[in-house]
């Protein structure tokens, strides 16, 4: 039950983008077209799930036993950065079509605060291994949901007479605000 709660809450209630403001840069940058938003979402979900695993291992096998709490930030960021590179190379090797779809988004993910935020939040909340993985996967799906909705809306707004100074990031932020309002309806559903 606890796992389901973590999962649902990561997608709908404490959505990474709309509640924690994590991953705003790609959320605004890669949400212009649905297709690329979808690929970005998949890439983030994939990397988030792996990050959840790896950061848990680092945290619980190296940092906590040796009381190296203060190395958390630097080790997480290094691990994420190398992980993303590794994943990129790996995908390029095993599946060129997948690389075409996802690969170009992977470098963008390195400095995506959603990934780092995930590792930090999972550590902060002291999640167990399975919980951390579910949290990572759910958060990735939450990000994907938000960015796809946003891309759909922005594709439609491309065909709207949005006033000139509001075009682009501004209208996207306002839409994000209204989306955050709409997602508010789900709070309190998990307790």
């Amino acid at each position, binding site marked *: 039950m606890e796992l389901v709660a973590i999962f649902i809450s990561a997608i709908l209630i404490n959505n990474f983008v709309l509640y924690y403001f994590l991953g705003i840069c790609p959320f605004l940058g890669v949400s212009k077209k649905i297709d690329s938003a979808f690929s970005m979402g998949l890439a983030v979900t994939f990397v988030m799930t792996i990050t959840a695993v790896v950061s848990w291992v680092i945290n619980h096998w190296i940092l906590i036993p040796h009381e*190296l709490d203060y190395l958390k930030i630097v080790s997480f960021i290094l691990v994420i950065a190398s992980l993303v590179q590794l994943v990129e190379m790996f995908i390029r090797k095993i599946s060129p079509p997948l690389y075409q779809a996802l690969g170009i988004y992977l470098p963008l993910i390195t400095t995506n605060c959603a990934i780092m935020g995930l590792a930090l939040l999972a550590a902060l909340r002291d999640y167990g291994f399975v919980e951390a993985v579910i949290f990572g996967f759910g958060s990735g799906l939450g990000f994907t949901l938000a960015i796809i909705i946003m891309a759909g809306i922005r594709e439609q707004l491309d065909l709207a007479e949005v006033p000139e100074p509001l075009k682009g990031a501004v209208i996207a932020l306002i839409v994000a605000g209204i989306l955050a309002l709409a997602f508010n309806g789900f709070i309190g559903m998990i307790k």
Partner: protein
Amino acid sequence: MKLSVRMVVVLTSIGLLSGSFLATVGHLTKERIALNKQREIEEAIIQVIPGTVSTQKLYEERDLSVYGGKDEQGTVIGFAIHASGIGFQDRITLMLGTNTSLERTNRLAILDQKETPGLGAKITDAESFLQYWENRDCSGAISLRKPAARSAEELLPSEINTITGATISSEAVLGIVNSSLEHTRRLLKEGKLSSEAQDVN
């Protein structure tokens, strides 16, 4: 120097330098940070078990720690249950003081919450919520009075009043309290809450 060798050397040495620098900083701040944490907990324990002079950690796991509040003689005069769980919007962390037999509540303190300001956030408010938690019968599960009773006198000994308009937050706190009480009771029965456990540090 060959480029790849230089790459390895540069990065490794930056890593080494940063490691030693951080070790120093970590070492310097470690105690202070631990002290801050301890002080925060202690203040909360003193708040929920009046008369506490010193405290002792009796049990610890994720989402639930039990502390003993001691008087000047060093006898445990009450338990302080430090628990957290999911609230309306995000996690709620609270501290509940009880007597040593876990049959009466002492006081409740909310340490961390992100409930709706003006509504759910009233769980931190003494008048509308916390006052009802004093001296409740907690030998069984505590229950919620809804719709809210007009005065504390109307409530049963094991009842607390809902915050009008914030039933879910009230329920969330109640849920965290009841489950952690039950858990603590089990620990007590199993003899895991011995006051001979190590001092809080």
